[in-house]
C-alpha cells in the first residue's frame, strides 16, 4: 500500500483521499507509457523467464538505461539471480529495492519547530520542492515558515515568496547578498518566536565541486544548530531524477558536509526513472523520502519503494 502523508508525517493514519493518490499514479504512469519500449515490455512480469539468460541481460540493460549504473545493476541482477524462483519480477525487484532503502520513510517532525534544511546542486527543483512540501504540511494542519537562504541567485527570493503564498506559509527573506547563514538564523528565530510547527530553509543551488560554497553550507547548518540544538532535524538533498552517475558524487559530498538525512527525487513525471538513487543507497545508505512528479503544488508524494521499483523496469505501478 502506498505510503500516505499522515504516516509519513508521523500522524495517526487517516483514510487517504483516493483522488490525490490516483492523480499522482496517473502522472507516473503517463510518463511510463510514453517510454514503454519493446525492451521494457519484455520485462513485464508475465514474460520474464528466469531460465532465459537473455532476459537477465535485458534486465541489466534496462537498469543501466535507468541510470542505476553498471556496478549497482550487476549487484541487483546477482541478488535476484540467487533466488530460487521468480514468479513475479515486479515483486522480486520490489523486495530487493525495498531492502535497499529500508522501511517506509518518515519525516522527523517531533520537535517544535521541526527544522528542515533543503540543499542540492543547481536546477534540481529545491525551491519548488520547498513550496510543495510546505503545502503538504499546512494541509496536514501544521503551521509552516519558509526561510529564503538563497541570497545569491537573481529573483530567488521572489520565486520562493510566491510559493510561500501558494502554500499558506510564513516567509522570511533577506537583502540580496546577505549572508545565507544569518537568514537561516533569522528564519529559525522567527519560527520559534511565532510558534510555528515547521521551519523549511531553502538554500542556493551549488555544485559539490565548489569547496567554498560547500563550506558556506556547513556554516549555515552550524548556525542553525547553534540557535536550536538538534536542528536541522531533516536535511533533504534534492536530486533531479535525470541525473547520471555524477549524482553519487553529489550525494557523497553533500552528505559528508551537512549530514543529509534523505533524498527528494524530483521530475519523475519525465521519462527518467531516477535509478541513481540505487547506487546512492548502496554506497551511502541514504533513503529517499520524497518524490516530485510535476510543477504544481500537489505534485509531491512520500517515497514508495514498490512503485519506484516497478517503474524502474517499465512496469505499471501496483494496482493499475
Amino acid at each position: 500500500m502506498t505510503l500516505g502523508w499522515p504516516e509519513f508525517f508521523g500522524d495517526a493514519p487517516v483514510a487517504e483521499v483516493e483522488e490525490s493518490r490516483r492523480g499522482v499514479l496517473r502522472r507516473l504512469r503517463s510518463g511510463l507509457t510514453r517510454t514503454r519500449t519493446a525492451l521494457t515490455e519484455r520485462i513485464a512480469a508475465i514474460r520474464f523467464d528466469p531460465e532465459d539468460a537473455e532476459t537477465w541481460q535485458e534486465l541489466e540493460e534496462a537498469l543501466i538505461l535507468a541510470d542505476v549504473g553498471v556496478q549497482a545493476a550487476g549487484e541487483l541482477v546477482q541478488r535476484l539471480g540467487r533466488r530460487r524462483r521468480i514468479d513475479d519480477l515486479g515483486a522480486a525487484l520490489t523486495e530487493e529495492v525495498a531492502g535497499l532503502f529500508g522501511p517506509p520513510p518518515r519525516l522527523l517532525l517531533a520537535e517544535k519547530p521541526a527544522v528542515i534544511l533543503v540543499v542540492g546542486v543547481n536546477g534540481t527543483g529545491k525551491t519548488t520542492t520547498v513550496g510543495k512540501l510546505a503545502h503538504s504540511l499546512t494541509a496536514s494542519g501544521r503551521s509552516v515558515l519558509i526561510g529564503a537562504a538563497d541570497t545569491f541567485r537573481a529573483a530567488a527570493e521572489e520565486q520562493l515568496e510566491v510559493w510561500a503564498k501558494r502554500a499558506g506559509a510564513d516567509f522570511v527573506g533577506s537583502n540580496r547578498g546577505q549572508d545565507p547563514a544569518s537568514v537561516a538564523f533569522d528564519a529559525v528565530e522567527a519560527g520559534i518566536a511565532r510558534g510555528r510547527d515547521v521551519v523549511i530553509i531553502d538554500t542556493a543551488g551549488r555544485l559539490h565541486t565548489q569547496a567554498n560554497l560547500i563550506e558556506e553550507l556547513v556554516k549555515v547548518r552550524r548556525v542553525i544548530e547553534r540557535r536550536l540544538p538538534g536542528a536541522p532535524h531533516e536535511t533533504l538533498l534534492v536530486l533531479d531524477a535525470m541525473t547520471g552517475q555524477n549524482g553519487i558524487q553529489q550525494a557523497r559530498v553533500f552528505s559528508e558536509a551537512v549530514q543529509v538525512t534523505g533524498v527528494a527525487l524530483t521530475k519523475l513525471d519525465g521519462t527518467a526513472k531516477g535509478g541513481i538513487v540505487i547506487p546512492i543507497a548502496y554506497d551511502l545508505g541514504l533513503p529517499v523520502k520524497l518524490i516530485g512528479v510535476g510543477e504544481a503544488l500537489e505534485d509531491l508524494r512520500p517515497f514508495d519503494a514498490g512503485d519506484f521499483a516497478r517503474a524502474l523496469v517499465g512496469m505499471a505501478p501496483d494496482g493499475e
Partner: protein
Amino acid sequence: MFDTLADKLQGVLGGLRRSGRLDEETIGKAMREIRLALLEADVNFKVVKQFVESVRERALGQDVLRSLTPGQQVVKIVHEELTALMGQGDSRLAFSRPPTVILMVGLQGSGKTTASAKLALRLRKDGKNPALVPADLARPAAIEQLEQLGKQIQIPVYRSELRDPVAVARAGLERARLDGHDVLIIDTAGRLHVDEALMAELVAIRAATKPTNVLLVLDAMTGQEAVTVAEAFQAHVAFDGVILTKLDGDARGGAALSVKAVTGKPIKFASVGEKLDQLEVFHPDRMASRILGMGDVLSLIEKAEEAVEADEAADLERRLRSGEFTFDDFLSSYRMLRKMGPLKGLLSMIPGFGKQMEGMNVDERQMARVEAIILSMTPQERRVPQLINGSRRLRIARGSGSTVQEVNQLLNARKQMQKMMKNLGKGKMPALPPQALGRVGRR
C-alpha cells in the same frame, strides 16, 4: 589503484609485447574496459555499443606504436574516435537579416535563463547589439530573474504583460526590431520533452518568431535519458545546436556525446560557472578527454609520438629486447626525453609515475652532464662499453669536464639499466630511472 582509463587498460593489456599487433582477444578485453568507462561517464548505452564497435574495427590489426604502451595506444584510438564523433566544435551562430532570433529551449533546471544572459553578454562583446525576451511565464519570478540579470550586464529585457508565451515572444521581437537590435535571445520555460501541450507551444513560438538558431540547453550531469530528451526536442522543434551547462562540476558529461551521436547537432557552447562571463566556445577534444576521465595523459602521448622517429625507435626496441643497452641507446633515450619538453612536468603526467616523481630531483643540468660524458666517448666505446678501461675513463673525464668518479657512476648506471631492460616485461616507456643517475653529475 587504477586511476585513469589508460592505467586500467594497461593493467588489462599488460602482457602484450610491444611490437605486437592488437589482436582480437586483447581488443576484446580493452573494449570491455572502454564500455565500462563510457557508461560510467553517462554516455548512452546504445551509443556506447555502436561506438565500441567502431573502435574495435579500427583497433584491429593496428601496430602498437613503439613509444606507447598498448594501453596508451588503445586510449589514443578511443580518444581520436571520440573527438571525431564530437564533431568539429562549430561554435558559430547563424545570423540573418536583423534581428537574428535565438530561441533557448530545454528541460526545467537546465540553465536556460543564465545561458541566455551569458550569450547576450558574449554577443555584445563580439560587437552585436542584443536584447532579451523573458518568455517563461510558468515559473514564479522567471521574468524578474532575467530582468535582474539583464540589469547586471546592461542589456535590455523586453517583458510584456501578455499572458501567452507566443504573444510575449512576438511582442518582444517587434520591440527589438523597432529599437534597432540585431540579435534577440528568447528565454522559454523549461518543459518536459513528453509534454505534448508544451512542446506544441514551443512549436508555436518558433513559428511566430522564426529563429535562425534554436539552442537546446542541456545539463552536463544528465544521465541516460539525454538521448530521449534530445530526440524528442529534435522531432518537435528541431534545434541547431546545444549549450552544455554546469561543466564547472565534475560530471564527465557523456550526455554530450550521446546527443551529438544521435542527433548530429553540434555543441556550440560550454557554460562553466554562474558568473555571466563564464560561457566558452566548445572544444570537442577536451570534452573527449573529459568523458574518458583522462586529463593530461593525451598530450603526453602526442608529445611522445613527435619525439620518436620510427627507425630510431624500432632499432632501440630490438636491442633492448635482446638485452643490449649501449651508450648510443642511452643518448637516444635522453634525446627523446629532451625533445618532449621540461622533464619533471612531463614525467609527472604519466599515470602512476607522477607519485614516484615526488621525492626525486630530475635535474636538467645533470642530464646535460651525462650527455657530455657520452659525447666524449668514441663511437666504438659507446657501442661496446666493456672496452672502457682506466685510461679511457680518464680521457673521457677530461674531455667532458667531469671526474673519473662520475664516469664510473655512469658506467655503473648503464649496467644497472641494461639489467633492468632485460627484465622489462611490462611495456613501460623507455624512461630512464632517475635514481640510477641520481649521483652522476653531482659534485
